[in-house]
């Protein structure tokens, strides 16, 4: 009798594991399908652009801007930010620990694993949020999310991850819900001007909006944080999200809000397989 009960428990355990594995497999499959559809849109719209070149944003589409950008990248304006970021990263907290203690591999070459869905906290974790959580768990005050010291630390961590391919997964119902929420945000129209992210960065990608050319959404997140000429400073992706929302006269969300983290999760999943190339310079 005991033997039969034990055998039954093992069989049930195997069945649950198989079903769970199949469910998580299907979430990743659904995201892969979306990703292919997303990329097909751009390959049809811009048949002359190499798929890997989308990591360079608008410079994949406009040769004149690209020429200027390549000259800027010879003496990158974010170099000092990376140096400062490295110094901050290696400076111990008051308790003697450092950022390296909070991250796998000491925080070096790991940016391609972010953002990711954390099952325990049931939230999307970005590298910037992880930096501040590290600070707070070591008795330090959090840094502001849009620029400054936090952007410099993020720039350093991304710099050490340059060339690494994005390798995110969607392994649970919670992760898929976060992905879908980000996807919904991306395609929802907002603001007085009634634009969605997709309007400017898919339908109107490559077109002129005032003096600028809108960048394609594919590859969007790979180069962040960016030194933007308009800011005359290094800034994070969430700073850019806020600016974009304001441009269409939508009240922006706070940097590292749930909404912006989920949007970043969706956008980064669309870039899965792309090499990280941040930090970078942008207009």
């Amino acid at each position: 009798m005991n033997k039969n009960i034990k055998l039954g428990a093992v069989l049930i355990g195997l069945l649950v594991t198989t079903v769970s594995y199949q469910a998580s497999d299907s979430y990743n499959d659904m995201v892969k399908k979306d990703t292919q559809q997303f990329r097909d849109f751009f390959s049809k719209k811009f048949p002359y652009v190499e798929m890997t070149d989308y990591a360079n944003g608008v410079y994949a589409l406009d040769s004149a801007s690209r020429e200027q950008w390549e000259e800027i990248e010879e003496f990158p304006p974010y170099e000092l930010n990376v140096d400062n970021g490295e110094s901050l990263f290696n400076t111990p907290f008051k308790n003697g620990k450092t950022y390296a203690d909070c991250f796998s591999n000491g925080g070096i070459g790991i940016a391609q694993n972010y953002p990711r869905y954390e099952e325990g906290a049931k939230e999307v974790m970005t590298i910037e949020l992880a930096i501040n959580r590290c600070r707070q768990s070591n008795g330090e005050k959090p840094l502001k999310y849009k620029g400054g010291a936090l952007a410099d630390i993020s720039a350093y961590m991304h710099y050490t991850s340059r060339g690494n391919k994005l390798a995110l997964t969607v392994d649970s119902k919670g992760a898929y819900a976060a992905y879908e929420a980000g996807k919904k945000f991306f395609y929802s129209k907002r603001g007085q001007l009634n634009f969605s992210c997709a309007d400017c960065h898919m339908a109107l990608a490559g077109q002129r909006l005032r003096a600028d050319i809108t960048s394609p959404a594919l590859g969007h997140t790979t180069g962040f944080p960016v030194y933007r000429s308009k800011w005359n400073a290094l800034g994070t992706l969430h700073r850019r999200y806020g600016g974009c929302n304001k441009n269409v006269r939508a009240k922006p969300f706070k940097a590292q809000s749930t909404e912006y983290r989920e949007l970043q999760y969706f956008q980064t999943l669309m870039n899965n397989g792309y090499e990280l190339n941040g930090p970078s310079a942008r207009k």
Partner: protein
Amino acid sequence: MNKLKVLLLAISIVFVGGATQAGDKGDLEKKLAYAKAQYAKAEKRGFAWTTTPKVLGKAKTALAKGDLKAAKKFIKKALVETEASLAQADTSDNNWQDFVPK
């Protein structure tokens, strides 16, 4: 007697006009409060516009100054904006997938 009749008529016009204006002001204050509540709803749903607080501010200032014509104009604009914001929120909830290119 005629002068008295004219005086009484003038007083009643002022009284009725003043009461109407007070009624208008009270009505506009209620509408402004409603517009603010609608803005708060749009904000909670994540679809507030940056332009609406400015319009609400102008309505409040106009009401405070007693410029009911201007207040009415700004309140109407605020109500149009908040209605549109909430419509965007509804479209997002119900139809966002329609905007995904196939």
